[in-house]
């Protein structure tokens, strides 16, 4: 249906001129910054050049901290350790091997590879199914402490507490090192900037906002976090390489926990999640510190600490937030962001093997300690069926949904999707089997726009570009229909957090439908919706199952709604399957009337 596609695309194409301009912005800014920094040593005195060289290396580290913490939500104190490992790898290579071009290249390689490998190990340790954000922070805290102690215990090899000094370094003057670190900073910032504005950059924010939703879109948030940790450990190691060369001294403090906390402080003051904020914040604070701490050593630290506390409490967005508020108050600051167009894509052919059940549950039982929540559940669902799961509060409906969509949930019995057992499978792998899950409380990415939420829903099929933005998002017709019926197709640029409750529910449904699942699990999709919104969602579900042959399992309290759309109703009561039949059978059943009048027990 090409007409539909172009009609939907209208809102996006109206803004066509802007994106190209704003896409060039990072490169223009980077080129200007590079030129200015190239010329800077000509006008600055030697002290300033020296200090700023160090500040810019630190700012490169701040970029990595910002990517991890500001964008992805991983509060890390560990970047200092990777920096230290890079610096020590360089210093040790140069001390014991020499500084010939070949050994220099080896030192550079070591300085990147060693921290990246360590980062991989740390990432693997920190991020696993059901790991918490706090645990990753704990590990990032332990890491610099361990690295520092290893340096202390390295004896002659690492110079122990006095560090390594006097090794040969790159044959550059003061200005040369200034320009080298400026180049590294500009390159790292530019790369980070391009990345966070790309489609793949949306995934970082998505992981921060809602990593459960990521997993239930078939993405692997843990793998992304591990990859990011390893890659940014490599970048931190590179900064360590430049630092070791520029200062020709490395000390245990460079890898320490305290330095790790300083990096976080600089990023917080500059403004987490803004890249330029942390860069400018780090350079400014480190430069000021070098100038002021000589005269007012303790007062400076006191001031910095007090400002930090105040910023965290009162201005979580840091100084960049002030700048942004000023900027958005100016007419020039109010440009609309880039928004891709939606296009229809041909759906996958309807489910095959109509005979075999798509979902099979055999003897499922679940208990929390001594409390049995589900017992002896047997159920089969075939393609094209819409099975409603009803029952009073505490009957175990949501628990059953959880067991179906997460194979790592401890339960007895067997669940298989299309003949494949889900035992031990994490949610993203179950999604790969063709399962889509809609949560009870609308689970979308609050900080992302409607378009970006849909983009991520397609990511497991279509991939995400790490450098650019896709012009179009190809969605199956069913997802487009949901968007059009709810008017969301005209709100693509709207951040999801500004949507109404009903719109969020519809957006989540569209995201799940965009996965093109064979089986869709819906937990109270109409809770808190208006009558009109319910009708819309009901129509969308009927079309999905009736026309496309998708199987659906629906938990629902609104029995009018259930009666209207179901092909089968399953009644769950006190953890057991009380009744399984057609709408007529269940509605007319005396058992259901007793359950709902509250008289049934035991």
């Amino acid at each position, binding site marked *: 249906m090409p007409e539909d596609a172009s009609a939907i695309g209208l809102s996006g194409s109206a803004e066509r001129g802007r994106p190209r301009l704003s896409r060039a912005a990072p490169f223009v800014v980077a080129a200007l910054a590079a030129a200015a920094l190239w010329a800077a040593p000509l006008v600055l005195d030697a002290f300033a050049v020296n200090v700023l060289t160090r500040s810019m290396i630190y700012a490169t580290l701040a970029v990595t901290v910002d990517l991890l913490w500001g964008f992805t939500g991983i*509060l890390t104190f560990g970047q200092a350790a990777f920096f230290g490992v890079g610096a020590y790898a360089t210093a040790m290579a140069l001390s014991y091997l020499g500084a010939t071009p070949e050994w220099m290249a080896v030192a550079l390689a070591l300085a990147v590879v060693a921290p990246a490998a360590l980062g991989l190990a740390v990432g693997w340790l920190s991020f696993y199914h059901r790991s918490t954000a706090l645990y990753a922070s*704990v590990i990032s805290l332990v890491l610099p402490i361990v690295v520092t*102690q290893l340096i202390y215990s390295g004896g002659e090899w690492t110079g122990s507490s006095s560090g390594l000094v006097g090794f040969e370094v790159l044959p550059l003057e003061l200005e040369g090192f200034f320009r080298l670190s400026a180049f590294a900073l500009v390159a790292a910032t530019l790369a980070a900037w391009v990345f966070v504005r790309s489609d793949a950059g949306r995934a970082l924010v998505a992981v921060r906002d809602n990593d459960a939703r990521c997993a239930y879109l078939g993405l692997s948030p843990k793998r992304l976090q591990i990859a990011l940790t390893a890659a940014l450990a490599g970048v931190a190691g590179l900064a360590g390489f430049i630092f070791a060369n520029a200062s020709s001294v490395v000390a245990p403090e460079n890898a320490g926990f305290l330095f790790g906390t300083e990096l*976080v402080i600089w990023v917080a003051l500059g403004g987490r999640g803004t890249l330029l904020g942390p860069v400018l914040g780090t350079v400014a604070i480190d430069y000021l510190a070098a100038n002021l701490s000589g005269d007012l050593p303790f007062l400076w630290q006191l001031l*910095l600490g007090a400002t930090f*506390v105040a910023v965290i409490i009162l201005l979580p967005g840091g100084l960049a937030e002030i700048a942004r508020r000023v900027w958005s108050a100016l007419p020039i600051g109010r440009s609309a962001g880039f928004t891709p167009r939606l296009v229809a894509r041909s759906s996958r052919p309807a489910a095959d093997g109509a005979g075999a059940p798509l979902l099979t549950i055999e003897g499922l039982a679940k208990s929390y300690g001594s409390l049995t929540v589900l017992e002896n559940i047997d159920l089969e669902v075939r393609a094209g069926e819409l099975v409603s799961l009803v029952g009073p509060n505490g009957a175990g409906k949501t628990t059953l949904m959880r067991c179906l969509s997460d194979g790592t949930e401890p339960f007895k019995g067997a669940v298989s999707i299309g003949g494949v057992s889900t035992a031990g499978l994490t949610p993203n792998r179950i999604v790969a089997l063709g399962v889509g899950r809609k949560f009870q409380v609308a689970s979308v990415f609050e900080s992302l726009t409607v378009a970006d939420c849909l983009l991520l829903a397609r990511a497991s099929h279509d991939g995400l570009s790490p450098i650019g933005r896709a012009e179009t998002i190809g969605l199956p017709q069913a997802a487009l229909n949901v968007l059009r019926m709810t008017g969301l197709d005209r709100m693509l640029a709207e951040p999801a957090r500004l949507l109404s409750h009903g719109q969020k529910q519809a957006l989540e449904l569209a995201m799940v439908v965009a996965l093109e699942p064979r089986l869709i699990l819906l937990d109270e999709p109409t809770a808190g919706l208006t009558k009109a919104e319910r009708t819309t969602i009901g129509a969308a579900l009927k079309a999905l199952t009736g026309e496309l042959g998708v199987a659906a399992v629906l938990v629902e309290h609104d029995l009018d709604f259930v009666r209207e759309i179901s092909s089968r109703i399953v009644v769950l009561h006190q953890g057991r399957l009380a009744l399984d039949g057609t709408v007529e059978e269940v509605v007319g059943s005396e058992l259901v009337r007793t359950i709902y009048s509250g008289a049934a027990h035991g």
Partner: protein
Amino acid sequence: MLLILDVLTTAAILFVTSIGLLAIFGVLKIINFAHGAWITIGAYCAVVAAKLGLNPWAAAPLAFVVGAALGGLAELFIIRPLYRRPLDAILATWGLGIVIGQLITLGFGRDVQFTPNLLPGAVQLLGVDYSAYRLVALGAALVIGAAFAFTIEGTRLGLSARAVIMNEALARGLGIDTARVRFVTFMIGAGLASLAGVLLTPLASVDPNMGVGWLIGAFMLVMVSNASFLALAAACLVFGAAQVLISAFVSPIFGSIAIAVLAAVTLRISPKGFSRA
């Protein structure tokens, strides 16, 4: 024999320095990264007490009161706005720790301070000479642990605190003033940290940054204890033993990171740590 005494006294010291952090984490679900600063405050209370010519032991109640009072202020102005942002609370309390460290530096200078030993000398115990004070520290840990257990198990405040830990929404619904419970708990936790600072003075050098090292160990121990006070005692014994044994038989440097590494591994294997047992 010496090793057993070392293990017991090390565990005791770890327990004393962690219990305040545990109390706050349990009830407020907030990690007080200014815990180290409160330990430092306590140690400087001992310095001040010595300068005023007070009995060295008088520093203990003094530190508890000063720490608790300052803790109350911190809870009101820094912790309270951050209840819904626990990771930010870590950062803000860390910043607060920096501020306190610098204020102490401004007031007392950055040099190491000397305090009179609370109990000098050694005693003969089962055939070995052992530092009398380390045995006192062991006793102090038992007293503090018992007092803490009594507060938790035997008083209304303790009952309210346990209710807040178990189910804060229900506690609110029954009319318990949860804000007050948090406030008082933070004061007690801060007070206990300062008390620990006094008890540390004979064992560690007193300087404005002395608390940081203790903070990390306490933090890791509290993480594996998951807000359970008995689990903390168990964790202190096990990890304290590991620290002493690794220091004695492998290397003191590995001993110094034993707690952090073992705690991280424990949490990876069992996210609830010692509280499961």
